[in-house]
């Protein structure tokens, strides 16, 4: 069986694939080869928005993620490096909640990013109250974990994977911004639909047609008071069934 390889001269081009990620829509996993230009654009977006939330030089930034989330998380790793902050990784599973709590109790963290429902469930199993996350001056949680954290008296910012891209709430707290240079977002029958702005790696590698996210929400076309011109989405509920 033949291998799929790129010619060497193309390996470093903007349209070449740097990583293959995945996302899930309606219970089905979709693979997403991401180009170098898309990674750079996503990293610039994350750098801008995480910097605006207050992450800066020397901050210890705990990023809770999964290995399968590389296409969404590596640009965040890039952003942490761009901000001269220090990345502290932990796995977003129930079992690895111990690591999250250990970091939180051991180090003066500047921010916790990507806190999700599995970590919260792990805390519950370990009898650790969610108020432990008060120790993080900046808390950015997955959309599905924001509610429980608010019930615990915390005030996290939200973030959400929309397909292969990441949307981040700003200080205005009036929606989540996604990378406007990399993606066009529309709403079709209540579902957020994406389309890459740039030319992709080629149709033999990726279909660049409209990309269903499975996320119900709306696009807010009004300028955001935070000053960002990145498109803003309001998420109404969890993924579609």
């Amino acid at each position: 069986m033949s291998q799929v390889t790129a010619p060497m001269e193309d390996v470093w081009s903007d349209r070449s694939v740097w990583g293959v990620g995945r996302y899930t829509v309606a219970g089905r996993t979709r693979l997403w080869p991401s180009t170098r230009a898309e990674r750079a654009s996503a990293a610039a977006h994350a750098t801008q928005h995480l910097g605006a939330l207050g992450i800066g030089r020397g901050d210890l930034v705990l990023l809770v993620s999964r290995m399968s989330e590389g296409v969404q998380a590596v640009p965040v790793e890039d952003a942490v490096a761009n901000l001269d902050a220090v990345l502290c990784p932990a796995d977003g599973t129930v079992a690895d909640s111990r690591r999250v709590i250990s970091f939180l109790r051991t180090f003066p963290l500047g921010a916790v990013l990507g806190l999700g429902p599995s970590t919260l469930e792990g805390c519950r199993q370990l009898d650790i109250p969610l108020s432990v996350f008060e120790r993080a001056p900046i808390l950015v949680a997955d959309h599905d974990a924001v509610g429980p954290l608010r019930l615990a008296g915390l005030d996290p910012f939200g973030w959400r994977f929309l397909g292969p891209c990441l949307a981040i709430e700003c200080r205005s707290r009036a929606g989540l911004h996604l990378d406007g240079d990399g993606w066009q977002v529309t709403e079709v029958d209540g579902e957020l639909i994406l389309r890459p702005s740039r030319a992709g790696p080629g149709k033999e590698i990726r279909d660049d047609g409209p990309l269903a996210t499975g996320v119900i929400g709306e696009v807010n076309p009004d300028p955001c008071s935070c000053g960002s011109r990145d498109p803003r989405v309001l998420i109404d509920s969890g993924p579609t069934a």
Partner: protein
Amino acid sequence: MIAEPAAAHDPGSRYLDPAIETMARPELEALQTERLLERLPQVYEHSALMRSVWQAAGISWREITSLEEFSKLAPFVDKDRIRQFRADHADPVGGLLCVPHAHIAVLGSSSGTSGDPTPLPQQANGPLVVGLARDFWEAGARPGDYVANAQFTYRSSHAIERFERIPVVPIFLDQGTEDLEALFDASVRFRPTVLYVVNNLLIAAIDDYGTRSGRDPAEVLASYKSVIFGGEPLSDRSRALLARWGLRAQQMTALGDVCGAIECREADGCHTWEDLALVEHLQLDSTTPAADGERGELVVTSLTEWVAPLIRFRSGDIVELTRRPCGCGRTHARIKVLGRTGDEIVIDGRSILPRDVWPAIEAVPATAAGLFQLIRRERHSDRLRIRVGYRGTSMAAGLAADVASSVEHHLGLVPEVELVPEAQLLRLGPPHKIPRVSAV
């Protein structure tokens, strides 16, 4: 940071860094000496732990001018010493850090199998990245290839530099059984050349998923030139399944928290990278070097790590080590990991390690996942006691007797067997990382 194009490597070569990988022993030792003597004053000046250990031993870095003197004079550290320093000085990094926080690229952490995760500060493009890129190359990855990247957990970052160094394209996957459809789909669509990294449970799950989905793993996984296996010993059952699918396994292990070590295609021990780490092995419970090829404790010194280098770190890993050149042409030391010093149980003068028990447990169908713990209250014991996880919701009649009989058949010892549902052991960590020894 997004990488710049690296120098092109010769895809026809067996080696990514041929001059280093095949370096003659005298040149390699000269390089090690140069790097060690450069590292020692930096560590002595900036690492609070190392300075205190060396001062307590009455040794100064100035007294070390050769590898021989280092071997004779340099004091050791181990995980307990680092933990003690953490506790005594309220220093989360255990006195190892040689630079301000802001100079750390990634603050990773150990698995935490034997306690709280140990923070492991890393620099950009550190030994882990450099070594693993060489290992990927040996496994068959070439520029432009896809590599299925299914590591155990997200605790050392995605370390994208290790892929950029060749460069290959990682396919990001979870190692758990829930990602099998994605693994199969990606394998068919992108025809990756290396699968990094699998364990016994995942191999069993691939077999099971293949049966349930009607997709033959031998066809789906046909593009892989190599499968990197790590975290636990490769079981006979897994070896047989991989062979049935036409796949070659290369086993990997950690080199004392400094970097990794992976077998080459000769499959005769995991290759260390001695330009990145000074590797020693000592007789157990002793400071005397063990003879080439014999069993000893692995001791590692970082040579290219400047953020938080470990100097003479007693890893607790029991290994067989040889410096005989490998059939692949590489000259660096190779190790076979046999177990952990804290895992050994001595019964009637006989040393028993978890890997000795493994084949007996997985030979019984209801315990084939190999989830078990040795009960070790003390190193010396009159009896072998094993806690074994069984599959399913209810225990089969006579299962304890079956397990005991299998252990007796394999080891000649009649054990006490305690049966628990697999789920109870899986709560202790990922399948390949549950503590294999328990005091209770």
